């Protein structure tokens, strides 16, 4: 925008208008000044939640608990504790389990004593790596017994039922792909 000044300084009125135009785009940024988008509640709603949408949203907006996804099956509670303690004191961690095998199936809940600490986790730990994997955090309405189990048909998470890729840290191929392997692999020797 430096070129702007060179072109227009002769004409006060026109340059004033251009300047105001620039300023208005800056003003759009003003609302951005209070933006805290990393802390916003996502579109996801728990289909098994006991209560209506309004109640769920209220709980999400006051929650101290985060859902953490895309964990390796081998990631331990200790590792989760170490990472998430960087944003504040952790009250408890519940490792998500395969409903059948009762082994870790790649997600967990992290509950903080203070919501502010959970917000910091959303701002600074969400989207960074744990066990070399980019993990994702989202607000959770609060842990209830039973929610620590995967909801996929095979016992793990739903996402691991249908995915086509090979992920060694999450049991290899997706469950469906394991039963019906892709055509190419059947033909390789």
């Amino acid at each position: 925008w430096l070129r702007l000044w060179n072109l227009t300084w002769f004409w006060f009125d026109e340059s004033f208008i251009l300047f105001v135009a620039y300023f208005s785009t800056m003003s759009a940024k003003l609302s951005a000044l209070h933006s805290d988008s990393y802390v916003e509640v996502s579109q996801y709603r728990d289909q098994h939640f006991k209560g209506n949408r309004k109640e769920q949203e209220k709980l999400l907006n006051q929650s101290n608990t985060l859902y953490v996804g895309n964990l390796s099956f081998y990631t331990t509670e200790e590792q989760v504790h170490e990472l998430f303690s960087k944003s504040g004191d952790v009250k408890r961690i519940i490792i998500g389990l395969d409903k059948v095998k009762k082994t870790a199936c790649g997600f967990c809940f992290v509950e903080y004593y203070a919501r502010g600490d959970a917000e910091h986790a959303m701002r600074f730990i969400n989207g960074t790596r744990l066990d070399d994997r980019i993990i994702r955090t989202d607000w959770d309405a609060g842990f209830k017994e039973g929610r620590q189990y995967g909801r996929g048909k095979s016992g793990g998470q739903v996402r691991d039922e249908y995915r086509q890729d090979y992920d060694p840290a999450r049991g290899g191929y997706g469950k469906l792909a394991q039963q019906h392997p892709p055509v190419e692999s059947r033909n390789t020797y």
Partner: protein
Amino acid sequence: MQKVARLLPEKLTVYTTLVGLLNARNYNFGGEFVEAMIRQLKETLKNNLYNEAVYLVRFLSDLVNCHVIAAPSMVAMFENFVSVTQEEDVPQVRSDWFVYVVLSCLPWVGKELYEKKDVEMDRLLSQIEGYLKRRVKTHVQMLQVWTAEKPHPQEEYLDCLWAQIQKLKKDRWQERHILRPYIAFDSVLCEALQHNLPPFTPPGHMPDAQYPMPRVVFRMFDYTDAPEGPVMPGSHSVERFVIEENLHCIIKTHWKERKTCAAQLLSYPGKNKIPLNYHIVEVIFGELFQLPTPPHIDVLYTTLLIELCKLQPGSLPQVLAQATEMLYMRLDTMNTTCIDRLINWFSHHLSNFQFRWSWDDWADCLTVDLEKPKPKFVKEVLEKSMRLSYHQRIVDIVPPTFSVLIPAEPIFIYKYLDETASTLPGYQLSITLGNAIKNRATNEEILTILKEVPNPNQEDDDDEGESFNPLKIDVFLQTLLHLAAKSFSHSFSALAKFHEILKTLADSDEGKLHTLKVIYEVWRNHPQMIAVLVDKMIRTQIVDCAAVANWLFSQDMAHEFTRLYIWEILHSTIRKMNKHVQKIQKELEEAKDKLEKQQLKRDMDKNSEDEDGQLEEQIERLQEKVESAQSEQKNLFLVIFQRFIMLLTEHLVRCETGSVDISTPWYKNCVDRLQQIFLMHHVTIQQYMGTLENLLFTAELDHHILAVYQQFCALQL
């Protein structure tokens, strides 16, 4: 517009230009705007928002450049500010602030003011010079990241700014870095009518005023460090000041949105003329290492640097690696608190980049005493890295020569593991207990078993076996924790299930101390587990904060005294104590408010007084609770400081009698840790200064120890 002045200070010249143009068109608008800004300035000062007030004054001063405000009236305001240095019996930080405001505006408006009022400005500057010479600078040492003067002196912030302004003056106020849009509109603006600032008397000093604390300027780079490309402005150039100011402002504005923050930092105007990556890295580390505390939560800086690396993958990682290398090389003189933060940053950073690092470059750390800062740093980094991954990973990522620095495998050490322990007094009982717990015995059944444990401290058992019995604690806790060793959750469940028993066993000061001792013995290879168990035990009141402090300072833990996890446990303990006091104080305030509201209602409604009575009783109980909590808090600090004094005095006396140099790595660590207690909890400690001075930090104390206390007091002068 005013909001913008406060919140986007790095773009202030854009907005002052706009105000200038509007003023040129409409004189009244200019007048109203200036009046509104003055009102806002008064408000922010009244509300202790000194950092915001700086931006407001800077905005006003730039309005002089836009012909909105007449230069002489700005000079008059500055004169009023500087006259605060003549006030008597005020904290130094008060006059510091007023001098800082004036100096920090001069890069923007110095030229214009000097052109119009050079005599007055000279007088102003000479007054400031006199003040700066008189200032007490006891606090500087406590705030320096490095104790060494080379390669970059860690300057007190006012001294540095003064040197920068002096240089600017010598350069005849030619400042070329700040973007000044108003220059392009000069022909229009110079026709505008200017306003005079109303005379502004700085508000007087109030006892509850909280002036900003003094700072030390963080420098780690100079022009020799950026190999090619634009040259880094010198440490005393005003450009350096403006760039650093603006980068700090950008972080302050966008800290909540790391992607935006990184993008804004990297699109800093004029970036082609400066080695921007170096400035950014320096500013970020400057904040991370700031003493007493960083402006933002530590993890922000880790994530921000990662975002920057993502946006500039071809250049920023190299600068960061260079910075890390430099920080490693200067560890010997780095403040221990800053080393802590470096350890946490580096290990977390590495965990996002597959722990790739050229460890061999640091092989020199293996050739010195392992207690020295460099090997200690590497050891702690590997320990933290292991916590974020697993033991074998660490073995794999370092060269075999580094094996001496690899942390121990975090496994449980069970005293009663097998038959080899059969001669130990508690062995048989550990088996009985273990089976009982596995078979879900009730608390009563467990207690019955425990009654059988002989007390090595007594000739014969007393009736209930209630007194302190170290063997009972040992057998029960070792067996329980062994069964629950699988994970944090398992151990927490165990503590919860047998909470009553544990509380009873630990029911004396000795009991609490012994409980902590046992936890250490079984989990000494897993410091992370020790920390979470101690945390849980404090929260469930099995042990109290003072017990933890006494345990950490005990002879049994002396060999661990310089390890990072010890201090993390201690600071976490102090924080829990502080939060506890705050919580009860809040409950008391709320109850008092409730009573007030109720009394008001009663006066109007003439309702019953029963509720009042209940509330009053509750308030009385809460009052007692607050006093008791504060007493516990004060006692905790007394215990900690007392222990420090004992340890340090012992060391100093021993060195003196042996004619040995006091400056061992242990000593430096210990003094830095004492300092750290003051710095990290200064808000709380302020309340107890009187007691501390009367009981502990008296004139009889060795001057080495007293110096730490005096430096701390100097922070608030």
